[in-house]
């Protein structure tokens, strides 16, 4: 029975070539409509940068995909299922302002949190979890910081701890809110390397980003009051990026 169900699930995934789908997504805060009619079909192995000026709703769109903001209209699906039912398959790296840094947790604790959704919140960690955590720490170059409290770390090191958490979660979709903001060059390079690796592993990576663009696709958000000239993003398209539908 279990095998049959698994095979069916695999078949369903294979059918959905575009794994992350936004259909006519509308997001509102109270009566203020921030974004409307956003459509996107994002296939596996795609790196998508959500770009645009301050206040255009980059973070908001990412949060909606993470299931943190209810949709005023439309739907977001992953492998054909509503994304709110697929939370285990989505890793989310929040903006640094959203984290209570003074809370006493170690770097290893943070990365281990990435294992909770798979394992169940009340189960003790297994050898497999510990191995995944060790591998993630190693890949981000923070093995020697594992026992340190996150409050003691630099901004770049804190970011790496959270990216390691996303890595340990082994999810199909990775959402990052301003991952490149306020970090050192080495962390920047490691994140770029990881983006490439995730693409090669056919995961979907979406980042809300301010200034940095690193190839791949884009969702460009405009403020209606001050539209961006299209040529501003032209160099990016030449690098092989493709435009996704966007709207306001």
């Amino acid at each position, binding site marked *: 029975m279990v095998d049959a169900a698994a095979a069916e699930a695999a078949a369903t995934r294979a059918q959905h070539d575009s794994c992350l789908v936004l259909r006519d997504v509308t997001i509102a805060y109270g009566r203020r409509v921030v974004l409307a009619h956003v459509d996107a079909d994002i296939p596996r192995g795609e790196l998508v940068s959500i770009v645009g000026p301050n206040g255009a709703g980059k973070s908001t769109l990412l949060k909606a995909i*993470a299931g*943190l903001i209810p949709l005023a209209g439309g739907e977001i699906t992953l492998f054909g299922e509503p994304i709110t039912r697929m939370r285990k398959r989505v890793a989310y790296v*929040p903006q640094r302002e*959203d984290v209570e840094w*003074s*809370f006493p947790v170690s770097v290893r604790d943070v990365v281990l949190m990435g294992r909770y959704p798979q394992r169940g919140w009340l189960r003790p960690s297994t050898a497999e979890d510990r191995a995944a955590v060790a591998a993630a720490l190693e890949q981000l170059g923070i093995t020697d910081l594992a026992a340190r409290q996150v409050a003691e770390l630099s901004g770049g090191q804190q970011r790496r701890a959270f990216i390691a958490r996303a890595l340990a979660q082994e999810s199909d979709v990775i959402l990052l809110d301003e991952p490149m903001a306020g970090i050192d060059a080495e962390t920047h390079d490691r994140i770029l390397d990881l983006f490439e690796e995730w693409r090669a592993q056919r995961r979907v990576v979406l980042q809300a980003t301010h200034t940095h663009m690193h190839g791949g696709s884009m969702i460009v958000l405009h403020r209606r009051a001050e539209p961006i000239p299209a040529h501003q993003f032209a160099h990016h398209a030449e690098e092989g990026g493709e435009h996704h539908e966007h709207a306001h």
Partner: protein
Amino acid sequence: MSTLTDPLSDPAFVRALFDVVAVAIVAGVIGTFIVLRGIGFLGDALAHSIFPGVVIAFLMGANLLVGALVAGMAAAALMGLLTANARVRDNTSIGVIFTAAFALGVVVLSNRSIGVDQLEGILFGDPLAAKAADVAMTLTIGCAVLAAMIGLRRLFVMASFDPSGARAMGLPVVALDVLLLALTALTVVVAFKAVGDILVISLMITPAATARLFTDRLLPTALVAAGLGSAASIAGLYLGYHQSVSPGGTIVLIATSVFFSAWLAAPRHGLVAGLLARRDRSLLRSEPEAVAEVILASPEIRDPHER
């Protein structure tokens, strides 16, 4: 030695001893989360909100703990509802609720007769008045709260540390916030007998705040808080017994003086340690973690010796 052993022949004292230690352990653990979350005011408000429940139970001749339990749960639910809205730690709405609850207690009391002793017991605690049934209820509720905190600790940590990440992973963060409030209310309910409605928050916050001065980690903080709270409670109970002063007030004063001593003298985070480090000249000779290299762009001042 008889100073310590004599009171133990009094069953009321032994009951009180069990009661205050159980309360101090639970309050220390839950207080750790209250302090780390910075929601001390919310805990205080919960404590004051049980006042009308206790007063009404007293006037009806019912068990005070049951009255406190009903009022505490109602207050926790109401505050949870208010704060769950956009997760505001809204001190304004909390201030409105708890003062209103306290006022309700005062109004209910105003045209009834209640002895000064009894009112003092409610407000400032009277551990020696605890009956065997009260102690049993304290132990039962205390164990339940402790079990919930231990069992769900990972969830509470995740929801407190990174609420948006926790929600993205599917954790019911708002429900956990309300649960933390409910557990706080339960702790208040069992603790108010020992130190009184007004002082109960001290037993939750002060030992945990003291523990934070000694350690940067969660489990040691909770353990130290529980230990300090227990020690202060035992000392306060003995002192109150021998000197015939309010044990509740004495417990709080002892815990507070320990806090101030730690604030002054804690090894790393204390005031004295900070001042000593500032004056320590040997720091100037030790190996730094980083060095600075200055590279100026303006050629005319690049090397003053060239000219």
